[in-house]
């Protein structure tokens, strides 16, 4: 075969491509690389962006380094689908060679990433804000840590608050996947124990646009609705429920009345006032550490630069997990040698100081922490915010039950019609 100009050009292009592919293999000493995964597309895009702000804030507070080493954050995005989340995580871990992985945002993603974590024993995975119970309860990965309490823990205290308000019969309207199952379980465990009844549960698809059939099904004799919908779904439901003339008081899931929903600019936002909900954050909590955190957030991410008036749940939970990652680095002076053994020991034993109180890990590397019961009120500037009704401390993952009695929440568990 004659060597022609074309052959040469092709070989050069080929070599360049091959070089580009092989180039990713260089590992280097120096900064600690932390991979950060959140959803910047899909139904939780606003929450994911705020989650990233929270995680970055934790690093900014330390001036960009921890344990004497510079920390570099490499970001990735998913769209709340588990396959996309694993692809993005794999890219961070295997291509960008991150030492520590923080993420993902939603429940199903968390389970998928935890399964992936088992195949990467040399990387430490720390949760982002995913709140599925199964992530740490069923077949946990030894290198997956979660410093935030999960969906069921977040709802502890709401059952009692609902009873105190005189709601005895409550209908559940929730999205049909693991995170709302947990949320409903957290609420019902306490609510049913205190004698409350849940006659109907309506499970709606995630990202649903039309709630008219659900709204038509709401029985006349319930006292309140427990609405566990996230982001855009919650806004859709509220709009449709209002225009259908609905007037039942509402109880909200932890992400139903998060800041991104309170910021909704529609006409119906006032219907949210009076809504009880529970979650790991409360805008109006008056702890000193919390106030410092909020002030820091507002200074770094003013509303004019796209930030929220006060940090959302996602921002806070990502902050908390990123802070744990950095505190761990500080504790071992940036020593990640020996398969990160020392680092993991430090994480496991850590008592994490968070703006809402101390967090410890249980034997499955799952957080034991505090929950706030809150009520939506309007301030004099017209902003909606969550006022603290009660703070519940030391909520564990089994919700105070014995291990053998505990069953993970599902469509039918728990049940008290």
């Amino acid at each position, binding site marked *: 075969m004659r060597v022609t100009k*074309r052959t040469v050009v092709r070989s050069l292009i080929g070599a360049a491509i091959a070089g580009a*592919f*092989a180039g990713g293999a260089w590992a280097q000493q120096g900064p600690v690389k932390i991979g950060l995964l959140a959803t910047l597309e899909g139904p939780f895009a606003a929450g994911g962006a705020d989650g990233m702000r929270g995680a970055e804030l934790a690093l900014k507070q330390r001036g960009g380094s921890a344990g004497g080493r510079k920390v570099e954050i490499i970001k990735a995005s998913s*769209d709340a689908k588990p396959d996309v989340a694993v*692809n993005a995580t794999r890219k961070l871990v*295997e291509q960008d060679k991150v030492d520590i992985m923080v993420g993902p945002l939603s429940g199903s993603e968390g389970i*998928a990433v935890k399964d992936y974590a088992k195949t990467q024993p040399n990387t430490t995975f720390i949760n982002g804000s995913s709140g599925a119970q199964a992530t740490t309860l069923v077949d946990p990965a030894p290198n997956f840590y979660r410093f935030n309490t999960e969906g069921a823990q977040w709802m502890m205290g709401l059952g009692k608050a609902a009873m105190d308000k005189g709601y005895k019969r409550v209908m559940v309207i929730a999205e*049909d996947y693991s995170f709302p199952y947990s949320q409903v379980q957290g609420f019902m465990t306490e609510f049913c124990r205190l004698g409350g009844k849940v006659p109907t549960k309506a499970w709606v698809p995630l990202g649903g646009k039309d709630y008219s059939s659900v709204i038509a099904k709401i029985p006349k004799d319930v006292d309140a609705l427990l609405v566990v919908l996230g982001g855009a779904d919650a806004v859709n439901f509220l709009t449709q429920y209002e225009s259908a003339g609905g007037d039942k008081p509402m109880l909200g899931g932890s992400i139903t009345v998060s800041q991104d929903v309170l910021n909704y600019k529609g006409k119906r936002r006032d219907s949210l006032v009076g809504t009880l909900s529970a979650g790991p954050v409360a805008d109006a909590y008056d702890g000193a550490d919390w106030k410092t955190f909020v002030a820091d957030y507002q200074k770094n991410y003013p509303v004019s630069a796209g930030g929220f008036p006060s940090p959302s749940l996602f921002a806070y939970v990502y902050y908390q997990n990123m802070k744990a990652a950095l505190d761990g680095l500080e504790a071992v002076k940036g020593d990640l040698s020996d398969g990160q053994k020392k680092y993991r020991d430090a994480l496991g034993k850590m008592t994490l100081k968070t703006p809402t109180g101390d967090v410890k890990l249980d034997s499955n590397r799952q957080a034991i922490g505090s929950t706030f019961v809150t009520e939506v009120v309007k301030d004099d500037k017209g902003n909606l915010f969550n006022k603290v009704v009660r703070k519940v401390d030391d909520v564990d993952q089994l919700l105070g039950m014995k291990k053998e009695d505990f069953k993970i929440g599902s469509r039918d568990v728990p049940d008290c019609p």
Partner: protein
Amino acid sequence: MSAAQWRKAMNSGTSIRAGVPASAAARPAQPALVDPYAHSDAPQWLKFLWRRLSARHVFVAAFVLLFPFFATPFVTFQIGAQSLALGLIALSLTFLGGYGGMVSLAQMTVAGIAGYVMAILGTSGTALSLGWPWWVVLPFAFAIAVASAVLIGWLSARTEGIYTIMITLAMGVAFYYLALQNYDIFNGFQGFQRVAPPTVFGVNWRAPLPFYFLVLFWALAGYFLVKHVIRTPFGIALQGIRDNPRRMNALGYSVVTHRVAAHALAGVIAATGGVLMVWYNGLITPGSVSTSWLINILVIAVLGGMKHPIGPFLGAIAFVLLQTFAIDLIDRERFNLLIGGVFLAIVLCSPDGLLGLWSRAKARLGSGQASSPMRSTHPDTNRRRQP
């Protein structure tokens, strides 16, 4: 190719070059300059290879076979294997669209059905799975997927153009909502986790290298299958139906039968891709068959170019590279803009996608000299088909 061109081609007696630049059909007409095997008794396959092979083929073959040994497992698995598996699904659309004139948006649905059957009948982390062994499940996966493809083809075969797109999109979306809202079979939003390829011959087929070669094998099989089929009487008739269904009908060809058969064949290819994708992801959820994926497959096919079966693979590589690395090039919230921008640029600059760019580059680089002494490429054969 328009009806007029078709007529001209038929009248002048030259073989049909529809859709295949420098198609194999055109080659025997070229004078073989130095064919050392012309008069020897060398085996047939050697003669065949000598006449068909060019530097391009050798280079691509060497690259796809050797690169996993130099690249990181990440590149092998996530870029290489994922591109080939997605390319396989897009190939089924290229076959339908490029050669049959039927743009079906439901190819990801067919692939997803195969994936769901693997998860439901086979083993997964969910209690709903029946746990049958893989060699029993695979035939079921293919049978059910192809049956669905036939159904989709049969329902859409009597429609043309935009109506085909609409009806296949409707069926794809219907399946998405079925999978999303059915809990007894499809397990709703959560779908099935931990669906792994079986360990056969002591090889863990989920490991990057074996999985890559598994996908590569089936991608090549699909590629050569399409290359072969388009030169068979069935393939020629299908291209005839694409260009002028009424004339083919008048000649005695059953348009509907050919179209449904094309859907069935595309279904086999899509099902292969679907099984590989579910093994690649290790899970299947309704998200895997959502509208965005139905459209992504079309994007991949169009991006690569619909005129040659290599197009969807090129498109898939570009697509996967962008999906994976766009976020490194541009800051967080904006990276989808880059993806969209690149797609737009490619499609605007070259209506034939990456293949069109390639043939133009070839025409420019290669003008004035032959690529290989065995044959010269006529720039004419690279001319874009009229829209």
